[in-house]
């Protein structure tokens, strides 16, 4: 008997439909992926699902009130709402450069929050 499960790979816009089949020995085979990253995604999705998280934080002295930021690696799905609650308490000061690390090791995940763009200081 084999069992199977379907997933859509979210790693890139192609969005391949993956099929994960288990045989008697619980060995898994992944099909439907158009590249290697699809198989890695399927394995992670079953054991430790993660997502890239992009959001904004308040910024003082910039052209806009909000600065777009992002995780520098996929973030554990179960802790996303904790991350969002934490980000509400953060305020950054301009100037900022794209790629600047704004928060290191956020919520002890080993993941950093980085600035998605430059924002000059304006008077």
């Amino acid at each position, binding site marked *: 008997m084999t069992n199977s499960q379907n997933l*859509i790979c979210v790693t890139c816009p192609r*969005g391949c439909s993956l099929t994960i089949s288990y045989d008697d020995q619980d060995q898994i085979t992944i099909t439907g992926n158009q590249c290697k990253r699809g198989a890695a995604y399927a394995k992670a999705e079953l054991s430790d699902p993660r997502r890239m998280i992009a*959001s904004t934080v308040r910024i003082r002295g910039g052209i*806009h*009130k909000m600065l777009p930021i992002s995780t520098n690696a996929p973030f554990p799905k179960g802790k996303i709402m904790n991350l969002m609650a934490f980000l509400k308490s953060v305020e950054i000061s301009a100037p900022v450069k794209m790629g600047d690390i704004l928060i290191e090791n956020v919520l002890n995940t080993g993941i950093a929050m980085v600035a998605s*763009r430059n924002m000059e200081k304006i008077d």
Partner: protein
Amino acid sequence: MLTVHAYDVIVIGSGPAGLAAAVSAKKNGVNSVLVIDRDVEPGGILLQCVHSGFGLETFGEDLPGPSYAQRYILEAESQKINLLMDTMVLDITSDFVVTVSNETIGVQRLQAKAIVLAMGCRERSRAQIRIPGTRPAGVYTAGTAQRWVNVEGLMPGKNFVILGSGDIGMIMARRLSLEGARVNRVVEIMPYLNGLSRNYVQCLQDYDIPLFLNHTINKILGKKRVEAVEVVRVDQNRKVQPETAEIIPCDTLLLSVGLIPENELTRKIGVSMDPITGGAIVDNCFETSIPGIFVAGNVVHVYDLVDYVSQDGTTAGKYAASFIQCNWNSNRRKIPVIVEEPLRYVVPQKICPDTLRESAIRLLMRVSYPMEYPVQVSLFTDQKEILNKTYPYVRPGEMVSIQIPKSAYDLIMASQEVRLKVLRKE
């Protein structure tokens, strides 16, 4: 309105298309390039698209929208491209006079030798889809809400219903959920998803937001502010079935019901338009029916990958440079690209066979309805099939592309047209 300033190439719009075109014109030897935008800073709509998913093709990295834009802004700066921001383009003529207006200079005329139009697209609004009911506050396009949340830090409401399963709507469903709002459901009139499948997974499924296909919003309820919407099922002919009506309380309705190329200026110039794409009819150099008027990006047709927007912008900029350097023959031979059902449209609509000597030509198409089985996209000359490509499935929300290689030069030169077909693969 007096002063006339002269530039070689003027680009309208500083999104990824306009910036790529400007940089490319400059790199191809044009001296003075000016980019004009009504926004206060360059970058276009991507500045408010804070989510990642941009640039995999171009940079091999999954970048947030603002980072993708930033790379092009930095390149434009290093190429010493002139930027005229906070300035509205009011009019353009077929002899390249651009009328602009802003607070400091008032109204001014600028003379160019070639023009690239890169005004992007805008969202369809309530007026264009005609939802009956009252006119309370709390009905916005998804893009307006995106700007409020991501740039201005304002929440448009607490309890949402989203009409339309396009990417912007789904991305906003996730964004609002992350910010603590409730998104009741996404309602889609068609029997299939309008955006990318990955956005269904990571924006709706991840946040337990139900998607209602074959449903629409029949009425908006509420006096001052939206209080509820009436959601109904539709039949195969998209006819409302009143007995299925359900009242869903909410304080905000977001519309994500499609994008339209922003072509008021283009029409004014008198460029020939494609009624299906809503953009100009172009050849593979992205020249319109008026010599020296080029177009780039979402103003041509709504792309789903920004990488292709930048690539095609680069092409437009390169040929705009050729145009003013006089190594250009506006009477060069063009042959039509014809699509057969279920292909809905193709861009470019014409190709210049002799450009195949320099580079391959990419054709981008959309289908009218989803085909959830393997299909073969084939390209024919007037003689025979010359190439094909297999897709595991094709969907209206995901562009289909096929590339004519340089090696097809002789075959294409000998043909009066190229024709594209999609057939089920047995």
